[in-house]
Each structure stands twice: as structure tokens, then as C-alpha cells.
């Protein structure tokens, strides 16, 4: 590293805040340096082939860096609404406040849901053990930027042998004020939880890059559902890096729904770190106008006899574009892993563009692995079938498009189906909520 060259161009990292743990400060500082050292990603790998990295640069990075992280005065203690369909609801708000409402019964089980910055001080050992170990500063330039600048986020801890029936909802509303957010979730052994990580912002949000890093650690035999919904405003740029690691006999079901943003790039991955681990991913992306989606998935099988499956559906209309790249990596000397991947694209009109690239890095022979991709317009025969029953053209298109993703939605956990259907029908109606 050429320090003098960097010092000439780049502002040195701010001084430590009085409430900031030193290890965290150092991590951020190191990340800031990594960010500045790292060149823009070269557009030669599939992960970067389809989207210009310049989209994710932040003009006022230095200004944000110089602002000490905002410390909210206690994000907990908000009254939990009776009969909520969620066991807890967290808000990352435009004003940089973090709020959490948690069912007292759930809190009583030892579950922690709080502002990540606060957790870094109050639950220091726990946070420090996991934080930034999967989406680390050296993951990539924009992940380092996130680590240096993050100013909002959640920490979730579920103790061993704890079943949380109702989902935990995390509502992220990045406005113009904050744009670097994180989630760290540590799920204990044999525990069960559903996380709904929902990104949306008011139409007022002019622009800005919403850069998010998500780390989920599932202990042995943990059962995790993770739902990532990207419904940002039409001007926003989304950049999300998410990693989950599941242990022996652990099970994760990850669902990605995306309808928002001008440019939306996601790198989602599960590391199957233990024997008999199981990971499923479902994706439903729906783009219109000039929207650009670039979704990458990773299934990394590190141990034996694990199972992964991806069912990724994309609907595009107007001039929307989607690139889906899916990497399956199976480590050498492993046996009897199974990995499946399917990506289907429905193109509602000419002028849309879809790419689908499977990537297989299979370093062993004893494996079952399949992948497939399709893309094309609505089948005119299907359209005729519906019209011949008196259904109008527009309505028929909507029914077929909704039907295209319906089998994927039907595979999703019961409590999420209506939500996913709603997202699709809103978008089909040309609305976005």
C-alpha cells in the first residue's frame, strides 16, 4: 500500500467517538483505508459485468465519514402493539433514529433486537465475535465503504433452543440522510426465526445509494427464514450484500423480492458450513420503465450431504433489464451434496433485456447439480386461452404474469405469500407501495 499517495488524496479517518468501542473504530478506519485503496471493481467477473460500479460511489463519503456515528438515546422501550402479526418490529428511519418494538414475551426469552451501534457497546463480546466476519472490509470496495460509514442498523440475537413463531419485521426507510446500514443476526442452535428485511422509502427520497450489509449466522439445527424486500423509490440506487452461514443440519430459506430502485444490485449468499445443512432461495423480481436489476446468488457447500435449491423468477416490462448470475461452489473432498438452480425470465415486451448466467465451481465428483434458465415473452397460446374465455387482454397478461411467479410464491412460507402476491399485483397495476 502506498501510504503517501493515499494521504495526498484521501482524508484521514475521523477521531474516535467517545461512545465508540475501540475495536469498532479500528475496523471502520481500516475499512476506510481499504475503500480508498481499492480500485473500482473490474468489469470482468460476472458479478460486475452487468452494472457500472460508478453507480455505487457516494459523492459525500468524506463528509459522512467525518460525522461521528449518531447514538440514539435508547431505541427500545417503545410500546409493543397488542395482537401484532410480528413478534418485533424495528425501524431504521430517515432521521437516523432506530426504533424497536418487541413483544415482551419474546424479549423475555432472551431475544435481543436493538440498534447495532448500541449493541456494539452493550453486547460487545457477542457482537465483536461475529460482526464483519462474513461481509468483511476486504469483501469489496463498497462493502468496505459500508463498514467505514454505516450509521444505522440492527443487531438480533436469538438464544439457543428458542422458537419465535411470528416474524420479526425490520423496516428500513433510507431517506436522503443515511445510506449505509447493516444487520447482524445471530441465531442460536436449534432455534427458529423469520426475519423480514424490508427496504422502502418515500417517493420524496430523491436519490442516493442505499448500501446495506447483512450477516446472518445460524447455529447447528437452526431454522431461519430471511426475506429481503427491495421496494426503494424510483430514483434510489440499492446495493445489498448479504451472507448467511448455516451450521450442521441448519436450514435457511431466503426470499428475495425486488420491485424498486433505479439500479438495484444484490449479492446474496449462503454458506452451508455443516453436514446436512439445507438452503433454499426464491427470488421474485419485477422491473419496469428503465429499472436495472443485477442479482447474484451464491451457494457454497463446504461440508458433506448438504442441499441447496434456487428458484429465481424475473418479470420485465417497458425497458427494464435484469442480470441474474448464480454461483454454486462445492468444495473439494466433499461428498453427496445436491445443488439445484433455476432462473426463469418473463419478458412482457420487446425492449426488455434479461441475462442469466449459471456459474459452477464444482471441485468434487460426488455431487448432484443441475441448473436451468429460460427467457421469453408471454406465450400467445396462453393469452388466447384466457381471451377465449372472455378475459380482456390486459387482465389476461396480468393473470399470466402473476401465474408465472405464483408457483414460486406457493413454495414460500405461508405467512409471506400474501405479501409477495401483493407486491406483484401492485407492480402489475403500475403501482408501487
Amino acid at each position, binding site marked *: 500500500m502506498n501510504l503517501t499517495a493515499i494521504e495526498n488524496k484521501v482524508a484521514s479517518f475521523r477521531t474516535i467517538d467517545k461512545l465508540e468501542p475501540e475495536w469498532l473504530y479500528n475496523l471502520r478506519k481500516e475499512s476506510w483505508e481499504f475503500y480508498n485503496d481499492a480500485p473500482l471493481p473490474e468489469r470482468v467477473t460476472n458479478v460486475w459485468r452487468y452494472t457500472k460500479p460508478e453507480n455505487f460511489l457516494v459523492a459525500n463519503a468524506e463528509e459522512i465519514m467525518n460525522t461521528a456515528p449518531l447514538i440514539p438515546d435508547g431505541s427500545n422501550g417503545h410500546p409493543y402493539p397488542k395482537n401484532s402479526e410480528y413478534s418485533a418490529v424495528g425501524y431504521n428511519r430517515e432521521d437516523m433514529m432506530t426504533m424497536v418494538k418487541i413483544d415482551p414475551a419474546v424479549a423475555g426469552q432472551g431475544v435481543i433486537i436493538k440498534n447495532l451501534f448500541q449493541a456494539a457497546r452493550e453486547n460487545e463480546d457477542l457482537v465483536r465475535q461475529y460482526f464483519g466476519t462474513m461481509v468483511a472490509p476486504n469483501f469489496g470496495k463498497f462493502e468496505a465503504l459500508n463498514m467505514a460509514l454505516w450509521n444505522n442498523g440492527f443487531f438480533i440475537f436469538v438464544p439457543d433452543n428458542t422458537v419465535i413463531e411470528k416474524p420479526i419485521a425490520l423496516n428500513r426507510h433510507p431517506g436522503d440522510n443515511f445510506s449505509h446500514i447493516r444487520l447482524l443476526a445471530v441465531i442460536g442452535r436449534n432455534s427458529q426465526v423469520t426475519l423480514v428485511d424490508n427496504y422502502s422509502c418515500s417517493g420524496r427520497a430523491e436519490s442516493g445509494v442505499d448500501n446495506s450489509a447483512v450477516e446472518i449466522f445460524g447455529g447447528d439445527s437452526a431454522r431461519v427464514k430471511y426475506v429481503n424486500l427491495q421496494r426503494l423509490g424510483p430514483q434510489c440506487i440499492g446495493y445489498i450484500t448479504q451472507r448467511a452461514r448455516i451450521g450442521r443440519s441448519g436450514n435457511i430459506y431466503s426470499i428475495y423480492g425486488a420491485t424498486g430502485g433505479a439500479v438495484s444490485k444484490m449479492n446474496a449468499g449462503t454458506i452451508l458450513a455443516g453436514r446436512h445443512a439445507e438452503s433454499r432461495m426464491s427470488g421474485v423480481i419485477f422491473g419496469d420503465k428503465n429499472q436495472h436489476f443485477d442479482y447474484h446468488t451464491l451457494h457454497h457447500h463446504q461440508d458433506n450431504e448438504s442441499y441447496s435449491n434456487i428458484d429465481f423468477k424475473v418479470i420485465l416490462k417497458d425497458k427494464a433489464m435484469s442480470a441474474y448470475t448464480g454461483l454454486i461452489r462445492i468444495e473439494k473432498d466433499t461428498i453427496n451434496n445436491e445443488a439445484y438452480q433455476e432462473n426463469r425470465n418473463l419478458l412482457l415486451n420487446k425492449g426488455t433485456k434479461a441475462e442469466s448466467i449459471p456459474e459452477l465451481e464444482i471441485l468434487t465428483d460426488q455431487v448432484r447439480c443441475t441448473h436451468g434458465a429460460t427467457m421469453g415473452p408471454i406465450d400467445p397460446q*396462453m393469452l388466447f386461452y384466457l381471451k377465449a*374465455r372472455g378475459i380482456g387482454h390486459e387482465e389476461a397478461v396480468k*393473470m399470466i404474469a402473476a*401465474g408465472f411467479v405464483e*408457483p414460486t410464491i406457493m413454495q414460500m412460507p405461508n405467512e409471506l405469500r400474501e405479501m409477495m402476491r401483493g407486491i406483484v399485483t401492485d407492480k402489475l397495476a403500475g403501482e408501487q407501495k
Partner: protein
Amino acid sequence: MSDKVFSFKNIHVVVEGKEVVKGVSLEIGQGEKHAIMGPNGSGKSSLVNALAGHPSYAITEGEAYISGKNLIEMDATERAKAGLFLAFQYPLAIPGVTVANFLRAAIKAKHGGDETVLKDFRKELTDKFSFLEVDKTFATRYINDGFSGGEKKKIEILQMAMLKPLVALLDETDSGLDIDALRIVSNGINEYAPSDGGLLLVTHYQRMLNYVKPDYVHVMMHGQLVRSGGPELALQLEEQGYEKIEDEVFNSVEV
């Protein structure tokens, strides 16, 4: 234009640049049942698909009216709304769209979006399922997705029963049915086919006509109706095959 419930005159159909129906005319009066028989590839499906408004089957010449309304000017949706129904020879699967939701949408569309028409929907559907001996779990299955040949045909008749068209064109609804299913489906047609409208059956075999008795039988060959008669014509075809008629009609010049 005629005062018949359904009529068409001098219909020509072009598919993939090839004329496959070459000037076919027919009039179906109120309550009448007609059957069209004809060898493979003679244009029967092309005719009924074109009449229903299939975009691949262009009507290049001719007229068609359903209770006085000009069909040619309408798109497929409007034709269906005007009361025309086509039971497909090869019903297509529509993944993700359940039978019940599909029928609800179709019934609603037919009534200009009026939801109130659906108030007895569930009961009616259950009754008709049981009449056609279809398991009621089919309501929540995706249309024709993984259905057996016979199940598809039953669901076509179920759709006719639910949509109550004025004119039904049934394209080889009897093919692919086992003996029991043939009886059930035929009973379904007799029960639910438009009684004050018109019915046009396309079939290869006499066996269905034993159940659904046509008033008129027409023979189609090489894109034309070459013979018309009563039910006895179907029996005659069963005995003699198409060859004799073919010789008479198409080789008469040489004779």
C-alpha cells in the same frame, strides 16, 4: 346476415401463409346440434380456432354472426363475451392460475366486472365438479397443469358449464377419453350445452354421437364442407370411411 343463432359464410382461413379452410358456410339455428367430421388435417380445428379469434388463424374472407352480431370485427375476448365458447382440442396449461380463479375472472369479465355474479360461485362449481366426476381439489390446481388427457377435456366442459355460452364449439372433446369418461363428458355436454343456443361438435367418431345426438352432420375435407346430412351420415362414414366421399367429390372431374 341470417336470423340464426350462429352462422358463417364462405370462411377462408390462412395459417402460416397456407390456406387451410377454403370457403366454409354453416347456419346453426336455435337449439340445434351440428357435428363436423373429417380426416386429420382437413381444417376442422383451424376453422373453430379462427371463429374463436385465434391470432394465428386469420380469416381472410367470409362473414360470421352470433345472434346477429358481426363476429369478424371482434377480438377473441369480445367474441367470448358475445357468447361464443371453444373447447380446445389440446387445452393448454396455464401455470400459476388456478381453475377457480380463472373461472371467477372469466365469469366476472363476462358480466362487465360485476362481482355480485359470483355469490353462488362456490356451490355451482362444486355441483358441476360432482356432475362431471372431477375431484373438487381441481379447483385449486393450476389449469391443465399436469392434468391427464381426460381430465383436461372434463375441465373444458366444466368451463362451458360455468360460462353458459350461447354457442359452443367443441373440438374433439371426445378424444383421449376412456369409456366411462366418454359417458360422463357426453352427459355433461347434454346437461350444460346451450339449450336455446347452438352446439357444434368436431369429432372423428360415431361413439360420442351415440350420446350427444346431432341434428346435422357435415363432412369436412381439404378445407371444405363436402357433405351435409342427418345423423345417418355419421354412421355411413363409420362404415365406409372418407375415401368414398373423397373419390366422389374430388375426383369427379376425372370420372
